[in-house]
């Protein structure tokens, strides 16, 4: 302890103590000289040896190395700037990805005590859902001890406010929602347990800040005003603060008390019909000193108790999983796969940047041969030179890293300005991002600086082997990125310019939402029949069909995974009426259509027939667990999974029990856009309490392709960034190879070598690494393509065009990058070049 203290005190008084030592040793020599003894030796070196006892000399050396490194970089600004740009790009991409991850999953939300909030989810070995029946929620809430509070939200379709054209997004929340999150009202009050926990309380609404500003111009007297939501009058009780943050990324224009949901959706049984009704999202707050595991334990006991009371509500082996809920995105184990994928992609960019810079460092090592030779000659150790060179790399990496951080921050700020982001969301780098940036800088320094520094310190920089490996790695990494973007671009192209197998341009979808208003099958059948007749009587309507699954609009997508001849195949089911195939322009290839209400009969898609009964006639076969007879084979129409080339479909005839959740598809003779308001008024005129959801299938299709297009665009930008960096690297290395071999080239030209031969001399050494890199990249992509398909939907397994496109772009750019500087070799003037030596 005392030793450490003395060591630190020495560090603080280092300059004075060093001066004293110098004095002392000078005195020693004087005295020795006086007595006729001579003392030889380097006084500076002796003093340094004495100082070493304190263990601080590394600081001096580090500062010395840093000063020297800064001077070296300052003296070669071209190199320093190139290196910093390359690093800023390479590291900036990673920092951006990390900042987003940080924002989504690592930072705690600015709500009250975010660390103790947990999101609760029902799981069993077979099922996962975020939605819990409201009655189950009440049971947990009333019995749980390990959670100090539980709250819930219920999402619902957007509502019509007064007579506005634009619907408002809504969320039902429990009365304790705002107090648990620590939300404040900017005017009026938010919900509270005393006033809003009863179904009989007067209907109340809390407005979101943005809606209050935009729709009501921030009216200070808004509290007490009555507005109409889906034509139901409701009193505004308050407005949330500008900085109010909700959990689970749920933003909504207005908030309604969960208990009053039946008032807004007339006839709804969501809150009391436990088995069939909608579910709420459950959240909890861990009691002090309770861990998530303890809470899960208690909830499991409660789940088992609940099973005894109402067996219908609980699955086999059901348990409640808790996840930290105080983050913007509650991370699920399933999501980490996507993050791993993104991490892998940005790391590829990072690798390209580092190997690229490694090549530059090596080439630079040759120009510094002279300097390093002199330093070795006057007694510097190789270790010391290596340390100095590596310090230079670290300094460069840190500069590049922070340039990358600045770049990333700017990019994220622009993103925030372009896309609507809540006011509290800030991408200003916090300690995690800083730590990540510094960490990446050191990683980069090791990647690009370690090997070249060793090579240079050992004076082996002229070896071509290391350089070839670097080129190969760069090419391989860019190749992977380019092939992935090639696959995505091709998938988008395929989707946009090939026949999807169904018609969507002239179709609108109508979801009357009968089930949410408590319609029973008989009433629903009658309603649907009337609606169908009214729609068919509307001018411009060509046909009307029924489909239980909502197509190209909101609504869930269900599929089953069936084992067919040893392969897992996704089967998308639908329940339809006979008009469906005609309306959606899906060809019926063989057999016949389904009859209305027919049971034990099924129409399968051609792809399913091929998979299930390869080489056989599917008609007359039995399909599924209940052995339905295959009566027809329809063309492939992957409406529910547009870019999954392996998807198959199966159709059953609708039954009366399907009617409450039925959607209608209306095909028009001309453009369908004008029909939307007309259809809305027809639906509402038949039953004024309904609020139908009506959509154009073509906009659903466009939204879908947009997502894929954006993914493809992102991957292409990354791929091009990688290949451009690789190109810059190749240009530098070829130029260096030319200058290194000027003499040899001059001799060859003097002896009459042909231009092609001269070029091959320079370029031969790059041919093998480029080809190896491209092959390795293609091999790696092919190896992981199964995995890629799971995350980047839409790319097909071994798409030759995607691969050829990616590799083609790569080879073309590499060739241009190599030929540009190589041309200089042809212009070497043998006479002058040989004279110079």
């Amino acid at each position, binding site marked *: 302890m005392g*030793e450490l203290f003395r060591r630190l005190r020495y560090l603080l008084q280092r300059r004075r103590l060093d001066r004293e030592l110098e004095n002392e040793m000078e005195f020693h020599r004087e005295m020795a000289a006086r007595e006729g003894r001579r003392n030889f030796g380097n006084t500076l070196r002796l003093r340094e040896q004495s100082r070493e*006892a*304190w263990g601080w000399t590394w600081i001096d050396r580090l500062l010395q190395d840093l000063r020297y490194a800064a001077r070296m970089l300052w003296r070669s600004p071209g190199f320093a700037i190139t290196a910093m740009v390359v690093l800023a790009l390479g590291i900036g991409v990673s920092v951006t990805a990390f900042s987003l991850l940080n924002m989504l999953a690592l930072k705690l939300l600015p709500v009250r005590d975010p660390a103790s909030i947990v999101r609760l989810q029902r799981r069993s070995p077979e099922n996962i859902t975020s939605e819990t029946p409201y009655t189950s929620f009440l049971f947990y809430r009333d019995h749980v001890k390990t959670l100090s509070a539980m709250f819930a939200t219920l999402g619902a379709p957007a509502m019509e406010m007064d007579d506005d054209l634009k619907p408002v997004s809504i969320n039902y929340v429990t009365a304790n929602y705002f107090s648990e999150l620590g939300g404040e009202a900017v005017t009026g009050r938010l919900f509270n347990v005393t006033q809003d926990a009863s179904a009989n309380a007067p209907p109340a609404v809390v407005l979101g800040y943005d809606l209050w500003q935009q729709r009501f111009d921030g009216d200070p007297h808004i509290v007490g005003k009555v507005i109409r939501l889906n034509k139901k009058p409701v009193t505004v009780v308050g407005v949330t603060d500008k900085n109010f943050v909700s959990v689970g990324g749920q933003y909504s224009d207005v908030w309604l008390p969960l208990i009053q949901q039946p008032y807004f959706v007339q006839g709804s049984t969501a809150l009391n019909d436990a088995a069939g009704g909608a579910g709420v999202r459950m959240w909890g707050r861990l009691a002090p000193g309770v861990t998530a595991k303890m809470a899960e334990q208690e909830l499991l006991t409660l789940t088992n108790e609940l099973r005894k009371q109402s067996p219908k509500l609980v699955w086999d082996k059901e348990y409640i999983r808790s996840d930290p809920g105080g983050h913007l995105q509650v991370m699920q184990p399933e999501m980490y796969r996507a993050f791993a994928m993104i991490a892998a992609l940005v790391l590829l960019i990072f690798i390209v940047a580092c190997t690229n810079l490694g090549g530059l460092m090596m080439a630079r090592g040759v120009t510094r041969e002279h300097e390093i030779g002199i330093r070795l000659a006057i007694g510097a150790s190789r270790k010391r030179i290596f340390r100095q060179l590596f310090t230079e790399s670290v300094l460069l990496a840190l500069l590049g890293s922070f340039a990358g951080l600045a770049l990333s921050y700017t990019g994220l700020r622009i993103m925030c300005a372009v896309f609507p982001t809540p006011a509290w969301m800030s991408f200003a780098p916090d300690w995690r991002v800083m730590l990540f940036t510094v960490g990446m800088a050191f990683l980069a320094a090791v990647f690009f600086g370690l090997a070249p520094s060793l090579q240079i310190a050992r004076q082996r920089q002229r070896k071509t082997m290391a350089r070839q490996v670097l080129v190969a790695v760069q090419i391989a990494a860019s190749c992977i990125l380019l092939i992935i973007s090639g696959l995505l671009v091709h998938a988008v192209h395929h989707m946009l310019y090939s026949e999807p197998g169904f018609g969507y341009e002239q179709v609108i979808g109508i979801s009357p939402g009968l089930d949410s208003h408590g319609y029973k099958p008989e009433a629903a059948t009658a309603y649907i029949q009337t609606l169908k007749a009214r729609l068919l009587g509307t001018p411009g309507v060509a046909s009307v069909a029924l489909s239980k699954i909502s197509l190209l609009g909101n609504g869930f997508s269900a599929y089953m995974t069936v084992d067919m001849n040893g392969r897992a195949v996704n089967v998308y089911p639908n329940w339809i009426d006979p008009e469906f195939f005609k309306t959606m322009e899906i060809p019926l290839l063989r057999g016949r259509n389904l009859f209305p209400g027919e049971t034990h009969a099924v129409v399968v898609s051609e792809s399913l027939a091929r998979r299930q009964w390869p080489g056989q006639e599917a008609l007359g076969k039995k399909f599924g667990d209940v052995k339905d007879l295959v009566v027809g084979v329809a063309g492939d129409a992957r409406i529910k999974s547009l870019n999954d080339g392996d998807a198959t479909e199966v159709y059953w005839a609708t039954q009366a029990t399907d009617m409450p959740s039925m959607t209608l598809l209306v095909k028009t003779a001309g453009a369908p856009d004008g029909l939307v308001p007309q259809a809305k008024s027809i639906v509402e005129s038949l039953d004024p309490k309904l609020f139908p959801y009506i959509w154009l299938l073509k906009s659903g299709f466009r939204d879908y392709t947009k997502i894929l297009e954006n993914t493809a665009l992102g991957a292409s930008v990354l791929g091009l960034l990688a290949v451009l960096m690789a190109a810059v690297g190749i240009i530098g290395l070829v130029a260096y190879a030319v200058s290194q071999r000027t003499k040899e080239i001059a001799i060859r030209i003097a002896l009459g070598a042909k231009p092609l031969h001269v070029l091959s001399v320079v370029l031969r050494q790059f041919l093998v690494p480029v080809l190896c890199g491209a092959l390795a990249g293609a091999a790696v992509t092919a190896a992981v393509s199964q995995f890629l398909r799971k995350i980047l939907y839409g790319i097909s397994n071994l798409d030759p065009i995607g691969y050829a496109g990616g590799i083609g772009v790569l080879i073309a750019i590499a060739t241009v990058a190599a030929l540009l500087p190589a041309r200089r070799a042809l212009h070497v003037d043998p006479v002058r070049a040989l004279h110079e030596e």
Partner: protein
Amino acid sequence: MPISIMPKTDMPPGALTLLILRVLHSGSLHGYAIAQRIHVLSSEVLAVEEGSLYPSLQKMLLKGWVTADWGISETNRKVRFYRLTPAGRKQLQAEISSYDRVTEAIQTILRTA
């Protein structure tokens, strides 16, 4: 021919520390005087060089065995005088006894082997 105590000689390691501790036992001295005293007391057999004396002294300062105070030399110059601390005294005792044990052991081998 004096044997010089340089960093790399056949002197047993730690011997210089022991000698410095011993000469400081009788009173505080400055660096040069320490070297002189060792030289004289060893009948001019041992010569302590700067290159080993000052690193040793720095290490002893770090260990807390000696402290340095300002004083005036015989030539009327301001120099640092080294003085043994209680920790240094203890260290001296420990080193002497371990030195005795080692030399005794060596002597035994020389006599009997």
